[in-house]
């Protein structure tokens, strides 16, 4: 689905991503892990185009479009039109838009002309329906996180990019989110690129893992291969 090759990224003079290679297989959930500040968020932002990359390739193969698309050539807004949904870290909801308007922004990326918010979003997060007319910024942290996920789902993406989606959400809804992701993967063939620190969640819902350290992947494999040793080695401070 997405193949990342030799990606290099700089913030000013600081080199954040180093020759990063990463494969995100279609129809699977790939989980990126790593300590604070190793560049996970930066990686996702690079995929979305929110930060410029110095070199490297981002090859995207959509399930419906014919061939391979080089994402680095595409503008940010075009990427979401290709079916990439993004749940950023820190929620990034539009604080002064109502909840409903926040969701409606996702419609811009849809190419099927649908102008209605899919029912599923409200089913998954009933609180959003309840608070439809409240300003996004007034929601509680967890509600905002739900909104951010709901908003990405409005696009009905082919590739869903999640940056610590469970942050600040109550446990039962976290579980529910995990289940929905699984469901989408299994039923609709969704591909997921997930950044997650919480091992139980990752273990339960991800198919593959990648551990990053200082801007490059240091370990990867099936999630079942994620041993305590690896964790100790790469995730302990």
């Amino acid at each position, binding site marked *: 689905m997405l193949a990342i090759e030799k990606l290099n990224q*700089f*913030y*000013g*003079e600081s080199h954040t991503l180093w020759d990063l290679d990463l494969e995100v297989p279609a129809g699977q959930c790939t989980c990126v892990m790593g300590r604070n500040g190793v560049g996970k968020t930066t990686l996702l*932002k690079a995929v979305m185009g*929110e*930060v*410029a990359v*110095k070199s490297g390739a981002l090859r995207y193969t959509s399930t419906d479009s014919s061939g391979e698309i080089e994402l680095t050539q595409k503008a940010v807004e075009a990427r979401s039109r290709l079916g990439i949904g993004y749940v950023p870290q820190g929620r*990034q909801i539009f604080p002064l838009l109502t909840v409903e308007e926040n969701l409606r922004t996702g419609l811009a990326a849809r190419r099927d002309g649908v102008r209605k918010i899919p029912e599923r979003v409200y089913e998954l997060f009933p609180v959003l329906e309840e608070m439809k007319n409240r300003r996004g910024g007034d929601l509680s942290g967890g509600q905002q996180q739900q909104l951010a996920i709901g908003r990405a789902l409005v696009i009905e993406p082919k590739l869903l990019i999640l940056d610590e989606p469970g942050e600040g959400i109550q446990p039962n809804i976290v579980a529910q989110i995990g289940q929905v992701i699984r469901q989408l993967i299994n039923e609709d063939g969704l591909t997921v690129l997930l950044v997650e620190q919480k091992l139980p969640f990752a273990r339960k819902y991800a198919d593959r893992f990648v551990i990053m350290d200082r801007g490059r992947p240091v370990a990867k494999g099936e999630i079942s291969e994620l041993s305590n040793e690896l964790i100790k080695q790469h995730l302990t401070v």
Partner: protein
Amino acid sequence: MSLTTQSSANFWLTRPFSERSTQIFLVVLLATLALVTLLHVAVPAGNPLHIGAYTVNLFGKYLSYALLAVAVDLVWGYLGILSLGHGAFFAIGGYAMGMYLMRQIGDRGTYGDPVLPDFMVFLSWDSLPWFWHGFDMAWFAFAMVLLAPGLLALVFGFLAFRSRVTGVYLSIITQALTFALMLAFFRNEMGFGGNNGLTDFREILGFDLRTDATRLGLFLATGIALALGFILCRAIVTSKLGRVSVATRDAEARTRFLGYRVERFQLFVFVVSAMLAGLAGALYVPQVGIINPSEFSPIFSIEIVLWVALGGRATLYGAVIGAILVNYAKTIFTGVMPDAWLFALGGLFVFVTVFLPKGVAGLLEHLKRRRHDPTPTPDKEATA
């Protein structure tokens, strides 16, 4: 070590004098003062190196503008208050000085009235209004130069900061303030000479204003005031208080949760800045020979902000560069291409914003960094 990024390891340990850029600034300023004096006094007129009284006077004016710009940069750059009304404090300081100079005319006015200024005779006032009393004494007038704008800033700032007026709302009410004052001072009933303002000054502290020596003296006084004002501002912004200001600028509410009474800090800096602006106004008036309500005009206040922006916000020395640069450009352009200078000035503003995102100071920083570290730096992407 850069001023803007403030990444100097011992930055917080230092006081203004120990900073390289401040030292450079002061040295350049004082050297300029000395040089100008030398070229004015020692080099005979006619020599191409001679600096005439006109130029000395002109630079005196620029320096007073520079002090004003420093005052604005203090509140805008470090406190995040975009004041669109600093012209008001400048003008009030100027009026205080103007009133003193008016009283110094004595009976040498056209009507020869020993007490009443000409415009009052002219409009048939029969006695001096109460607020004109005391301005015949230099110490009183000079105190008022600082106190009057300071007091206005205190009252205004107290109200505004207490109510937590911020951002554009604060900008607009500062603008409303100066606009209201402009209209008020235009009114002849106010007793400040209406539209004509105060003119025809003769002498200051017994020195004849129309001599070159006095002009040079005023120029030097302004330069020294600028240096002192700069040091004061620098001391403030490099102190912990300066960092509280920056914190307030970026996250006002958060600063409160740390236990800082933000409104008092804002008020303090605002009042200091207003007083500096008043001082600048007082130095400006004897050098240009007139003070009238157009100094209160909102557009003038916006222009001050433009100087600061053009020079580079939150650097202080950038404000000085901006003020001098813009006004010098204005002088040159209006003389060289009187019909088209607005194109040049407007173009300058556009050019600087688009190509020099951090103003002239930013350019200097950049060049300095380039010299220290020749690898080109890719521009930082703006991320949300």
